[in-house]
C-alpha cells in the first residue's frame, strides 16, 4: 500500500489522539491520592524537580481543599506546570524520587495531582498573579517556547514590558510542535499559552523569525535586554546512503506536520522504521502506529538498559504494538524508483563506557536487512549553529554559552533552554527561563 494518508476513520483518529492523561474525574479521587502523600520534609520530589516545585505543599493544599493555593504553589515555581504535568518524565524526576519507591510501593501520582490543580486553574482562568505596574523597561524574548514564556512571565511580573518574537503561528514551542499530540493536545497548549500571557505585559508577535524577519542587532538597539530561547533546530542526519530517498523523514518535521494539520492528512507507511530511542523517537513511533501504520519497528544502537527514553515511554510504544530491534545501527537505505524499500542495519555490541557514561555501541561488522517503506530519523536535533555564529554569540557547536547569570558574551543578551543545553526537558527550559529572568532583572537594575 505504501505511504498514504487517511488510513483510519475520523473516530479512530480522535480516539487514538485523545489525551492519554485522563484527569481525576472527581475531587474525591484527587483528595484520596493527596492524602496518601506523607508530606516529607526537604522532600526528595521537590529536590528532583528542575523547577523545585514545593510538591508536599501543593499536595497538602489539594487535601485541604485549597485548590487555588495549590495551583499558585505550582505556578510560582513553574509557570508551565500544566504542560509539565503532562510531558515531564516524572518517573525519573519527582515521582522517581518519591519515598514510597523505597518501600516498593507505588509513588504518589504527583503529575496527576499537578494536572488536577493546574487544570482547574487554567480552565477557570484564575488570576493567581498580579503584575507590578509597568516600569518602562522593555525586554525582547526570542522564542515563545517554554524557556521564552517562563522568562517573559517572570519579567512581566516585575513590571517589565516584554515582546516575544515567535517564528511559528502558535506559542508553546516544542510543547505545541514537537511532542506527541496525545500527551498535550493542541487545545491545551493554546489554553496554557493564553493563561501565561493573561498576566498582561507580554506581547507575542507571531511569524517573526530571528535572522529573517528580525535581527539581533535590531533587538539589542530597541530593547533594554534580549533573551534568546530559540531552542534547537534541524534533525541530526544519519549520514548514510539513501537518506535522500522518498519515505525518509525526520521525526521533528513528522511530528510538526502532525501537530499542524488534520491527522487524516498525515501520511505514514505500512512498514515504518524509527531510528533512535529517545522521547521524540517514541513520539514518532507511537503516532505512526496511531495514524494506522501496520508495522512500526524502533531501531536503537544500544540495549534497553542504555535507552534515553523512560520505561513509561517504552511501555507506551510497546502497548501501541511497536516492535524493537536493539543493538542495531542503520547502515544504508536501499530504494526502488526513488522510494525507500529496505533498511540495512549493522549489528552492534556494547563496548567501553563513552562520555555519557553509557556503554558505547561497537560495530560487529554483521548486517541484516528489513523491509521498509518509511524511515523516520529521530537521532537528535542539532542547534542553530549558523544563526548563532553569525550573531557573534559564543557557542559550543552551536549551543549558546552563558555565564552563571544566563548572559551570553554579548552584553544584555541572555539565553536559556534547548538553545543552551542542546535539548533537555520542558521543565529544564522553564527553569532556564526563570534563571535568565533573574539575570535580566539584575542587569536592568545595574544599567
Amino acid at each position, binding site marked *: 500500500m505504501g505511504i498514504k494518508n487517511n488510513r483510519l476513520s475520523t473516530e479512530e483518529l480522535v480516539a487514538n489522539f485523545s489525551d492519554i492523561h485522563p484527569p481525576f474525574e472527581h475531587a474525591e479521587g484527587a483528595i484520596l491520592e*493527596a492524602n496518601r502523600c506523607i508530606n*516529607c*520534609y526537604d522532600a*526528595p520530589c521537590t*529536590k528532583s524537580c528542575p523547577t523545585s516545585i514545593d510538591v508536599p505543599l501543593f499536595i497538602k493544599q489539594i487535601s485541604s481543599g485549597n485548590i487555588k493555593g495549590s495551583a499558585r504553589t505550582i505556578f510560582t515555581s513553574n509557570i508551565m506546570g500544566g504542560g509539565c504535568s503532562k510531558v515531564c518524565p516524572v518517573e525519573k524526576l519527582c515521582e522517581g524520587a518519591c*519515598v514510597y519507591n523505597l*518501600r516498593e510501593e507505588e509513588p504518589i501520582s504527583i503529575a496527576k495531582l499537578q494536572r488536577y490543580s493546574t487544570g482547574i486553574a487554567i480552565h477557570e482562568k484564575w488570576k493567581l498573579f498580579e503584575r507590578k505596574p509597568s516600569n518602562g523597561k522593555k525586554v525582547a524574548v526570542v522564542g515563545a517556547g517554554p524557556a521564552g514564556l517562563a522568562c517573559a512571565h517572570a519579567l512581566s511580573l516585575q513590571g517589565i514590558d516584554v515582546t516575544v518574537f515567535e517564528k511559528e503561528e502558535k506559542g508553546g514551542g516544542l510543547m505545541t510542535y514537537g511532542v506527541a499530540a496525545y500527551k498535550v493536545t493542541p487545545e491545551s497548549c493554546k489554553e496554557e499559552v493564553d493563561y501565561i500571557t493573561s498576566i498582561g505585559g507580554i506581547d507575542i508577535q507571531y511569524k517573526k523569525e530571528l535572522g529573517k524577519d528580525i535581527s539581533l542587532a535590531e533587538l539589542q538597539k530597541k530593547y533594554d535586554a534580549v533573551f534568546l530561547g530559540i531552542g534547537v533546530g534541524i534533525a541530526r542526519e544519519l549520514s548514510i546512503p539513501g537518506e535522500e530517498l522518498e519515505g525518509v523523514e525526520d521525526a521533528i518535521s513528522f511530528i510538526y506536520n502532525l501537530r499542524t494539520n488534520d491527522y487524516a492528512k498525515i501520511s505514514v507507511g505500512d512498514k515504518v522504521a524509527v531510528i533512535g530511542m529517545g522521547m521524540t523517537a517514541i513520539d514518532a513511533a507511537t503516532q505512526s502506529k496511531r495514524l494506522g501504520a501496520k508495522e512500526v519497528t524502533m531501531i536503537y544502537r544500544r540495549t534497553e538498559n542504555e535507552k534515553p527514553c523512560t520505561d513509561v515511554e517504552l511501555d507506551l510504544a510497546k502497548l501501541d504494538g511497536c516492535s524493537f530491534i536493539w543493538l542495531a545501527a542503520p547502515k544504508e537505505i536501499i530504494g526502488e524508483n526513488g522510494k525507500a524499500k529496505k533498511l540495512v542495519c549493522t549489528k552492534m555490541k556494547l563496548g567501553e563506557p563513552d562520555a555519557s557514561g553509557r556503554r558505547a555501541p561497537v560495530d560487529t561488522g554483521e548486517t541484516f536487512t528489513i523491509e521498509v517503506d518509511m524511515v523516520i530519523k529521530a537521532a537528535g536535533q542539532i542547534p542553530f549553529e549558523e544563526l548563532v555564529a553569525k550573531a557573534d554569540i559564543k557557542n559550543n557547536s552551536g549551543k549558546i554559552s552563558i555565564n552563571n547569570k544566563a548572559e551570553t558574551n554579548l552584553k544584555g543578551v541572555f539565553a536559556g533552554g534547548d538553545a543552551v543545553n542542546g535539548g533537555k526537558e520542558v521543565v529544564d527550559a522553564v527553569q532556564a527561563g526563570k534563571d535568565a529572568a533573574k539575570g535580566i532583572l539584575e542587569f536592568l537594575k545595574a544599567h
Partner: protein
Amino acid sequence: MANLQSTFLGIKSPNPFWLASAPPTDKKINVLRAFEAGWGGVVWKTLGSQVKNVSSRYSTLDYNGQKVMGFNNIELISDRPLEVNLKEIREVVREFPDRAMIVSLMADNDRKSWHEMVKKTEDTGAHGIELNFGCPHGMVERGMGASVGQDPEIAKMVVEWVMEVAKIPVITKLTPNVHSVVPAAQAVIAGGTNGLSLINTIQSVTGIDLDTLVPNPNVGGKSVFGGYCGPAVKPIALKFLTTLSQDKIAQKVPISGIGGISTWRDAVEFMLLGASNVQVCTAAMHYGFRIVRDMCDGMSNWMDEKGYKSIDEFVGLSVPNVTRWEELDINFHITAKIDQDKCIHCGLCYIACEDTSHQSIDIERGNPYNKYTIKEEECVGCNLCKIVCPVNDCITMEEHRKGPEYLNWIEFQKRGLPLNDH
C-alpha cells in the same frame, strides 16, 4: 478456638459485642438484622415519653480524607410509640432467645413514671435494663439524661426508684460530661444499680459550614450542641473506664465499655481496662452490622495467640499498669534509634523533633535523600519521632537506664537530685 461466650450480670450472649442504645437498635427490623449478622446483644434505643426528632441529625469530624473520625448526633430518645417498641422487643426476644436484650430507659422525672416504665419493659421478656443518665442533648433541657447523671444525688434517687420494682439486672449508663465519673458511679451503686456502662456521648460542635457559617448539623439554619462519639472519643472513654476500675466502690460492679469501639483491638483494650463486655454504635453506623464478624474473629485469634480460653481471663489485666505520675520510674530512660536500612528519608522525624521537640536528630543533606541520625545525648525518649515515622519498626526506642534502681519523683525530690541544666 477461644470461647467468646459472655455473661454480664447473668445475661448471656454468644460474644461480648452488644450494639449500644442508639439508632441501630431503634426498631425490630434493625435488631433482627444485627442478630442475623452475629451481634451478641443489643441495648434497645432509649424508651420514654414519646418525642419528636428533627432533620438533620448527624455530623462528623473527618480528618485527612478519613471519614467519621468522630461522630455527633442531636437525635433524642426513640420517637416511636412506646407500645410499638415494647411489642417489637417482645417479638425479637422470642425470635433470638440466645442474644442479650437490654432496654434503655429514660422515664419522666418522677417515681411513678419510672416504676411504670420498668414494669412494662420487664413484661417484654427483656433480660436487663440500662438507665440513660447520659444523653447530653435535648433531654437535658427537660431535666433528664445527662442532667440526672451529672448530679450524683439525683442519679442515686432515680436508681432507687428503679430498684424498688426491678426484677431484672439494671445497668446505669454514665455521662462523660463531668470532671470525674467516680462520684456518680459511687452514688448509683449506693442506689442499688447492678452494673455500669460508659461512656455516653460528649457534648460537641463538630464543625462549621464555611459557606453558610452554620455549624453542623444544620437544622434549618441553626445548630445545637450534639453528643460526640466514634473513634475520636475512645481515649477519653478508656480514661473514665480506668478511673472506675481503680475505684474501690465502682470496681464492685461489672462495667459495659462504650466509646469509639470500632475493631476487636479496641474491644480488647476496653476489656483489659476492666470492661466485662463492650457496646458499639458508630462503627456499625459507618459500615453496617457486618463489622462484628472481624470483631469476633480478631478477638478469638488474639485470645488463641495469647492462650486465653475465655474472655474473663483477660478482663482488667491492664488496670494495675496505670499508676500515678509520682510513681513512675525516673531512672527509666529510652532513646530513639533509626534503622538506616528501613529509613525512607521522609524527614518527618527530623522536622518534628527539630521544630517541636528537642533537636535530637542530625541531618546530613543529600540529593535527593537526606540521612537522619539520632543525637542520643540530646534525646529525651519522648516517642515523637517514632510516632510520626511512616515505616514500622524503623525507629525503635532503646532502653538506657539512668540508674539501676527504681526511683520515683517523691524519692527524687527527697534526695535533692539535680534537675535538667538546659
